[in-house]
Structure formats: C-alpha cells, structure tokens
C-alpha cells in the first residue's frame, strides 16, 4: 500500500502528538506493523525529528548565561523595560527620533510658565502634567477616596498622602536614591518594598508591609521599623470614658528604628570590619548583614552588603556567599563591587550545578 492509498495516514500526526485515545493507539500500532505506507511516514517523521534534535547539540556558554542572569536581575531591579527585539539599526533611528522629540519637548516646556512638576493622582488630575524627567521608582495605586501626589526630583521621590489608602510598590533603590511617603503627621521611608499606608482625618492610622523593610517616623511617636508581614495600627485615642474590658491591641512586631541622621552605625561597621580582619568570618558576615538591615540608607551600606558576601566566601560558605552577592547585585545594581559580586555568584552557581560523572 502506498502513502496515497492508506486512509489512516492522518492518524500518524495525532498519534505522535498523543491525541489518540488508548484504543485508537493500540489499533494504530497494530496497523503500523502491517502498513508500509504508515510505518514509512512514521519512520520518516521520527527520523527528521531525531536529526533536527542533533542540531540542538549546541549548548549555551555557562559564563555567558551567568552574565546574562546578572543583566536580567539588574535591569529588572532598575525597572528597565523589556528591550524591543527590533533590529538595532531601527533602534538607533528610534533613539534619534526620541532625541529630537526631547529637544522639542524641552523647548515647549520652557515656553510654558508656572507648570508644576507634579504627577497628580489619576483620580484627581484633570489636565495631565508634563512627564517627569526620570521615571518613577514607585508604583502607587490609590483607593477610591485617596488624595495623593507623586513627584520625583534629583533622585528623590515623594508620595504625599493627605487622606485615604495607597498601595505602593517600590523597586530597590540605588545608592543616592530615596523614596518617601509623606503623611500629615509623619513619613515612611523605604528602600524597595511593597506596602500600604492609610491616613484618616490627618493622622496615619495603618501601615502594612507586604515585603521588604519600612521605616515609619511619626512626629508624636518613636520611629519603628516594620518588616515582612508587619501591620502597624495607631493606638486608640485616650478618652475620659472608663477603659473597656477588652485587652488593648497587640503591639506591632517591630524593631527599634535606627536613629537616622544621628548615628549612621559607624561603630557597628567598624566592629564588623575588625572581625573580618581578625579572621572571624562567620561573625563578620552576620555583623555586616545586621549593619545593612539596620542602616540601609547609610553611605557604607553598599560596602557592607558586599563584604557580607566576601566574609561568607572566606568562611568557606560559597553557596551562601553567592546568594549574598546576588542580593547585593539586586540591591545595588550599580555597585562599585558589581564585577567581584558577579564572580561570587558564578562560583556559587558552579557549585550548585550537578557534576557529570
């Protein structure tokens, strides 16, 4: 029987794709043993697949893959949009057009007098303000009753919240960047996190941290640091009426806030460095980690974050060192130590990779 004569040839594709039921499969397998045309097609299709699979023998370069990994994480942390896969020449043309458009926009901007550099809440804005000079680091979603503004100047971004609840997601901040939510009675500062803030009647009533670290500073209270899953709620207002029988709300799980602006943790940093010099690497790693957690905004946080990875590597914990270096790259994408951190990440990846016998 030739290929043109067999009426079951169409079933070969369905069989190879696994779309035939059990009975039809058995039936076709019996048929294949008898039908030359169908078995030839089956053999031909499978042979083609096997030969083409041999083309896939080319393997990615491991080092290049690790570099690519760091590039993906760095760009994701910086909020870089996925690049267009268009031809680079076209990209160059687009860039040239964009440059012309920017010059034109700049000229037009200078003609407009008194235009505020504020990005208004979509709920409030009637006329869209001009776009900011650099993209926002935070994504803010306000609830229906929220009144808020967002603006960014000189690498400092502020969300001013007058009333209502906003949900905020902030990408990891780079060295020199700050992100603040300013409420009528205080402020919240973050380095890259997801959280909600609620203001009622001019007072902050609730802060909930989904992930990351949030420093809450209110004028009338001591600062608190909130971590993953923490919820801070304002204590009830004291009144003249007798206290209720119900117990007071549980205090939030907080750590003492770092006295920002007063002590940047220099002594802690020095102590960690001393441990590193003394060869007490495990202790040094823990000390650097504690320093970064307590003083994420300090000028030495970047170094401390990297030195944590170094200390772990010297302690022989290469896998942990790799993870710490990876975290360092994500937290400080433009780190001065980026190359060295990438090397640690690669070494750890080498360890994790299963060894071929």
């Amino acid at each position: 029987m030739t290929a043109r004569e067999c009426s079951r040839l169409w079933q070969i594709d369905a069989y190879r794709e696994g779309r035939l039921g059990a009975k039809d499969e058995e039936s076709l397998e019996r048929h294949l043993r008898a039908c030359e045309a169908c078995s030839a097609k089956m053999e031909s299709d499978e042979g083609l697949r096997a030969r083409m699979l041999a083309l896939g023998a080319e393997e990615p370069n491991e080092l290049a893959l690790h570099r690519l990994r760091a590039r993906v994480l760095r760009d994701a942390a910086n909020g870089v949009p996925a690049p267009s896969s268009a031809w680079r020449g076209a990209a160059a043309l687009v860039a040239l057009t964009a440059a012309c458009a920017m010059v034109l926009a700049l000229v037009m901007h200078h003609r407009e007098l008194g235009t505020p550099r504020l990005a208004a809440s979509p709920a409030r804005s009637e006329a869209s303000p001009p776009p900011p000079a650099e993209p926002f680091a935070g994504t803010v979603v306000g609830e229906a009753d929220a009144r808020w503004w967002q603006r960014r100047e000189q690498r400092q971004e502020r969300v001013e919240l007058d009333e209502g609840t906003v949900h905020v997601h902030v990408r990891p901040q780079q060295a020199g960047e700050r992100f603040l939510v300013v409420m009528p009675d205080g402020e919240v500062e973050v380095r890259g996190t997801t959280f909600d803030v609620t203001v009622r009647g001019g007072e902050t009533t609730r802060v909930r941290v989904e992930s990351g670290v949030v420093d809450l500073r209110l004028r009338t209270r001591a600062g608190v640091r909130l971590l993953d899953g923490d919820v801070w709620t304002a204590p009830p207002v004291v009144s003249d009426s007798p206290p209720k029988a119900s117990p007071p709300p549980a205090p939030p799980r907080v750590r003492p806030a770092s006295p920002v602006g007063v002590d940047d943790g220099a002594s802690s940093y020095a102590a960690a460095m001393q441990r590193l010099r003394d060869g007490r690497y495990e202790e040094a790693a823990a000390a650097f980690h504690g320093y970064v957690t307590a003083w994420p905004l300090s000028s030495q946080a970047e170094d401390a974050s990297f030195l944590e990875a170094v200390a772990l590597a010297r302690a022989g914990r290469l896998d942990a060192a790799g993870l710490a270096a990876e975290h360092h790259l994500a937290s400080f994408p433009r780190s001065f130590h980026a190359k060295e951190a990438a090397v640690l990440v690669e070494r750890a990846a080498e360890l994790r990779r299963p060894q071929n016998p």
Partner: protein
Amino acid sequence: MNPRARALRLKAVGDPEILKGVVAGDPGALGELYDRYARDVWRAVRRTLASATDVDDVVHATFLGLPRIAASYDGRASCRNWLCGIAVNLAVRQRRGKQRFQRMIEAFAHTLTGRSPGDPERRASGSEELAVLDRALATLSERKRAVFVLVELEGLSADEAGQSLDIPAATVRTRLFHARRELKSALEREGLQ
C-alpha cells in the same frame, strides 16, 4: 526573611508560586526561574534563530518581560513550555525584522568562510550532515520554523504552540505539515533523505 533563607525556600516551591513572586517584583523569584529554565529557553531560541548573535538578547527580553506577563500564566506545574513559547515568539519577531539584513550578511559571510557541501574535510569530521540540516532548517519561513521548533524539538503540543504564537492549533498543524515536507525535500536535495 533574610535573602539566603528566602532563596533556599524558593528552591523548594513550584513554578506557579515562583511566578507570583515574579509578578510581585521579587528579584529572587526571577533569579530562581532563570536558573531553572534559562538553558532550555536558550536552546529553543538558538534553534529558531539562524545566527547565535541575538540569542542572548532574546533570552534577556524573555525574562525581563516576565513581570508584566507572568500573571497570565495558566498555573501548570511546569512553566518550561510556556517560557519556550514566549521566547520563540520573540525570536520570530526579531528574525522577521532582521531577515533581509541577515540574509545579506550571511551571504557575505558564506563567500568568506563557506566551504562547498562536498568538502571532504567537513564530511570526515562529521559536521557535514549537521551543516546540511542547519541549512535546511534555515530555509523554512520564520512561521514554519517556529512551529517546527516548538512542537518537534521542544515537545509542545499543537495547542500550547498555538497559544504561544497566538494562532489556532489547526494552523499549527498545517504549518507543521508544510515544514516537514519542505525539510524532507531539502534533505533529499542534499542527498540525506
């Protein structure tokens, strides 16, 4: 949770949960997903693109774009096929845009380095057949090549490939039929079928 503990925890969780982390902007989740599938994605893209030059860019674009599209994942236990589909789709777009330019460059490169199909040295080294297969695959249109790569080489079903490329499953099967036929003809011409 400190980064090390979180990274270790991520190793133990499934793809759907990792993708939720990616949507939430967790760099650890993105890194973990990369570790799991970057090699598979790279190979799929390499098979789709005639040149290795742009493979890294497509892989980069695939993972960088994930936070925007991961929410659309259907929740299957493994997202390997889904990722490969996205990557091949991106590669096809890239290839389409560059095709004319690429042909010109490849023709130029061939005149500089190409050897005749019957070169005894290459035949002896065993690379001749691979070169012929590579040339045959490169003759397919980008649509047929994408379908062939996804279904025959990456093991996606026609339905999965259709979802990835945004075409009906029946169209996938039609293109696959033509792709096989063209490849077999090309191999016959080269004396390999």
